[in-house]
């Protein structure tokens, strides 16, 4: 192990290309482009011909992919579940902030 700490890049504002997104989700890039075409995934920015995705898009894509795999869910159903889970997460955060849980 190196003693010197490895430096990291925070991906907050960094955008990922479709190929990077596919690699990070362990899927073929066709999965990403197909899900964008179907409206399941959204593109954060377009520069030239390149689609760019945010970290939030990445987290959503990974969740959708996991739901598709674990439950044999169709993309639309997986996206709906992902949206609901995100909403639950937001509401739970609000409950914590309000000191109710």
């Amino acid at each position, binding site marked *: *192990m*190196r003693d010197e*700490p490895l430096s990291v890049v925070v991906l907050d504002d960094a955008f990922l290309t479709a190929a990077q997104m596919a*690699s990070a989700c*362990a899927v073929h890039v066709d999965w990403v482009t197909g899900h964008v075409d179907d409206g399941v995934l959204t593109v954060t920015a377009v520069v030239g011909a390149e689609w760019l995705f945010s970290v939030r898009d990445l*987290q959503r894509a990974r*969740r959708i992919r996991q739901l598709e795999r674990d439950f044999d869910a169709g993309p639309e159903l997986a996206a709906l579940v992902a949206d609901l889970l995100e909403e639950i997460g937001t509401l739970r955060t609000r409950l914590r902030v*309000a*000191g109710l849980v």
Partner: protein
Amino acid sequence: MEFKDYYDTLGVPRDATAADIKKAFRKLARKYHPDVSKEKDADARMKEINEANAVLSDPEKRAAYDRLGRSYRPGQDFQPPPDWQGGFDGADHGFSDAEAAHFSDFFTKIFGAGAGPRPRGAGSRQREFHGRGEDHHAQVMLDLEETFRGATRKISLRVPSIDPQGRIALEMKTLNVQIPKGIRDGQVVRLAGQGGPGFGDGPAGDLLLEVHFSPHPRFHVDGRDVHLTLPVTPWEAALGGVVPVTTVDGSQLNVRIPEGAQSGRQLRVRGMGIPSDPPGDLRLTLQVVLPPASNPRARELYEAMSRDLAFDPRTGQEV
């Protein structure tokens, strides 16, 4: 190493059909899926369930497992036969090598660490293929205090690696990672070249670390903002005053409570939240705490207020 009974994990008989296995897997996945499960061991159980499903839903792997498992009972010490071929070439189950790396030693002994899919177009063991390695994902839990000062974390991962003979094996890898000050819950950091090994002359993938904060007994985080419930006395709330507040990093602030403040009122201290760019705010929710009427003097004061103040908090609530 103990023999794992994958049928028992999924709760299906040994002669279960593919449909039975799929049904059992989905039922358990619904129960233990980390996104929704309230079970304490959901994450560990989901890994076991995924592993069992990866084997039993693949006819080739299942047949191999059945062949090996005929003379074993669950929990019995297990060693694969000396002539057993590790590095099993199974079908693609949607599990990457990075995910298969979470499977047990038992799985690895039987099927090899490379039982996940190969990169698209790579074929199973095509040595001439050159491709970038997979990106790996992991989560790291930080204490809230660590984002205020930055942190160095040792992270241990089980990762597939390629030995000089080109075989894939799992090995423990420990990384010393500098987590930058100001990192927020849910952010992802990238460690270039620390993911899966490249294929042929291809470069290694990246390691993507998702950062989360451990629950804090006093503070709650929402994005960049840090929330704190601040107890105040009735006279501080009614008359206004200055009260001390200890922040996440241990420093002391003096916060002015406005006159006539009520319970639930929020005060904002700009720039004292997560030290990101821009920094978040510290949000204080006032909680007026009444002193108990536990002695004659306290009772006397409450009785004086009851007598002298024309105050009814329920005014306007009449139906």
